[in-house]
């Protein structure tokens, strides 16, 4: 019992945020229920992002009824690679990534050859709500296939690594690079076994990582060091994340982004209840940073000033950036 108390005090001193605090002080306080559909439906997110001029993977088309499945050819056009997703899918289910065409058929990213009919069946399944939580009718989204930047080749296993930045009222407070592993099956979700690697907000240099709640420095599949990697175009990511507040109106979100080989940073999706493992990846508590941002907001409010995304990024980079590398 005493040991627990000591742990409690130690975690508190380091500003580690627990689920209860996240829910009570951040999710419930800053995220209005009525705005949830914006982040839950990827199509709405995308429309909003486009309207706000924020970079997202290009949307080729939406299929919302069985009849519209006939338009699939028209939507795909001559493209040889594309992605089909359920708009309200969760956990990466129901996503079909087509990498190439092969003699009138399609080749998925994992090498499987499928026919046009099979794709149509997949879309039909999406529409009936097979992949949406709760089984509601859903829409299928056909969009640009992201090709991850070469920089991640050495430190990821299959799949698309993404970058998660937690944004409080438009201020990015913590960032993490999520790397799929063999265990996570190419998915970038930490609870499925992906690696989270902390990122210095100012420089874009990776820190140490977390894998299944432990602190690690090497990728378990490739054994390459995950720390000390310079993420390209880091300021672009930061600005993109900071702009998401204006996009959705939710005050506490996790912004998931990818680095496309050609198009640079793109927003994949927003999450209204971002996980807490990012703290282990960064070896730093969220509460300290969120309190600093809240203090800043209060000061700005008193002065009657609002900051632009660029100013916000500058503030957090000066405040939380330039973490000295840890030994060991």
């Amino acid at each position, binding site marked *: 019992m005493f040991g*627990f108390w000591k*742990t*409690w005090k*130690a*975690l*508190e001193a*380091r500003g*580690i945020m*627990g*689920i*209860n*605090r996240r829910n*009570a*002080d951040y999710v419930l*306080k800053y995220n209005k229920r009525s705005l949830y559909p914006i982040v839950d439906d990827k199509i709405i997110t995308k429309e909003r992002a486009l309207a706000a001029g924020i970079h997202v993977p290009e949307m080729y088309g939406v299929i919302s009824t069985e009849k519209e499945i006939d338009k699939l050819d028209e939507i795909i056009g001559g493209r040889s690679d594309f992605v089909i997703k359920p708009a309200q899918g*969760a*956990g990466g*289910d129901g996503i079909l990534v087509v990498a190439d065409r092969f003699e009138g058929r399609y080749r998925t990213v994992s090498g499987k050859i499928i026919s046009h009919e099979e794709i149509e069946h997949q879309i039909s*399944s999406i529409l*009936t*709500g*097979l992949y949406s*939580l709760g*089984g509601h009718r859903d829409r299928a989204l056909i969009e640009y296939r992201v090709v991850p930047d070469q920089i991640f080749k050495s430190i990821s296993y299959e799949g698309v690594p993404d970058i998660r930045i937690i944004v409080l009222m438009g201020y990015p407070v913590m960032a993490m690079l999520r790397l799929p592993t063999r265990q996570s099956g190419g998915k970038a979700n930490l*609870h*499925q076994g992906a690696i989270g690697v902390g990122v210095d907000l100012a420089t874009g240099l990776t820190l140490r990582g*977390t894998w299944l*709640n*432990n*602190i690690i420095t090497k990728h378990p599949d490739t054994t390459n060091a995950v720390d000390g990697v310079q993420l390209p175009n880091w300021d672009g990511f930061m600005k993109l994340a900071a702009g998401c507040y204006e996009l959705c109106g939710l005050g506490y979100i996790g912004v998931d982004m990818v680095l496309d080989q050609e198009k640079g940073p793109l927003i994949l999706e927003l999450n209204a209840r971002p996980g807490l493992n990012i*703290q*282990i990846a960064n*070896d730093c*508590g969220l509460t300290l940073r969120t309190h600093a941002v809240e203090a800043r907001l209060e000061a700005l409010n008193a002065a009657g000033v609002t900051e632009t995304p660029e100013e916000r990024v500058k503030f957090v980079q000066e405040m939380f950036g330039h973490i000295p590398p*840890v030994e060991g």
Partner: protein
Amino acid sequence: MRSLTLHLKILITILVVLGISVTAYQIFVLGIPVTEDATDDLWNIDAKVEFVANPKDPVKIQMFVPPLSRDFVSLNESFISNNYGVSVNRIDGNRKVTWSARRAKGNQTLYYRLVLTKRYSGEKVKVKGPTFRDSIAVEGPEKIAAEALLAPIRQHSADVETFITEAIKRTNNLNDDNVKLLLAGDPSTPHKAKIVELLLSIAHVPVEKVHTIRLVADQPQTPELWLRSFNGNDWLYFNPETGEQGLPADRLLWWTGDENLITVEGGKKAMVTFSLNNSEMNAIRLAKLTDENTDANFLEYSLYGLPLQTQQTFMIMVMIPIGVLVILILRNLIGLQTLGTFTPVLIALAFRETQLGFGIVLFTIITALGLSLRSYLEHLKLQMLPRLSVVLTFVVVLIAAISLFSHKLGLERGLSVALFPMVILTMTIERLSITWEERGANHALKVAIGTLFAASLAHLIMSVPELIYFVFTFPAILLILVGFMLAMGRYRGYRLTELVRFKAFLKADR
């Protein structure tokens, strides 16, 4: 934000204070027992009347029975008599039973039985009594002796109370010549009481003879004489032998006045013997019985006022918030992962039907089989509603099969399965399989075990009889519970499992 916190604090305070005060009122003012086991003495008093009837005369027996005015309440009263007419009437604060028969022969035995208990509610009923009386006329030496006795009594007393005590003490001093003269060689208690009455009447202080029965089990006894006087507010009781004031709590007032306990017309050798015994009774049942026999209906507006069957339903219902509280603590304070929020509570309710051990086994078997069916259905790519319907039907068939087998094997326990809520099982299977697919088998297993654990714990706590009694009797406890839940709504400390989850931070420190 701050105003919200203040608002919440005020709300919690109001709820908790309200809950505590209502419960305290029930316990301390209404005197409702805190535990079911608290029992009260239940007295069973039999008065056996024996006499020899005259062969030719009609018989009429009159006997005083307790008026039960204040401290005791009767639960049951019966007059056991063959061929006798019975009537009860009240005269001057006494109650008298009259048995009558046109003809009777030989030895007769009648019974009067009274079941009573101490009164629950402490409300005092206003009593009335005389505060003045005329002197009993005495002449000659008695008058002089009485006045000689009264002089020191007056000197040594301050008020009516001490005056009476003093008078009784003086009367009991058998060496005093004046007393000797007044007693005239008869130092029996009734006679002494009469002398006391005489003395007091000269001072215009009214006293009354009170005949009491001692509530002691298995002891033969005769009515005990006490004196009482009204001081304007209340009756004061005095022991005519010692002058001691105050009636002990175990005395039951049977009748007052100078008359005999029993009068018999048309008979002789009348004799009354008392026998008492006591038994204990579940306090709330006693309170209920008392309630039916009095006007004080403090249980009228409690859940005990409901029909018995509804009461049983409510006994389960009032425990649901307790179960939810257990889940709340397990999830938000401990950090245990369960399927959904209230599924464990529903499973805990289902355990009521099956018993814990058997319930866990059943739950595990049915869920495991259901999951394998669900994973097969997954290949068929069905829509949700048809899929759920298939799983539900499968669960029903499974339950039927288990019931049949266990019946054939002679295990009656298996039949209780029929009531194991199927919808709960179906939903559990569905959610578990979603969890399985989204987060892997390990996580699904963890969640399933967490759910079973939470359900078992909730079931165990929800079936503690003392707790059921307490919550059912004092439903205001639920307000305190709501207060706690509200407070939990803004709890932002760590969950116990998070201390383990974030252990990596502490290792890094070293």
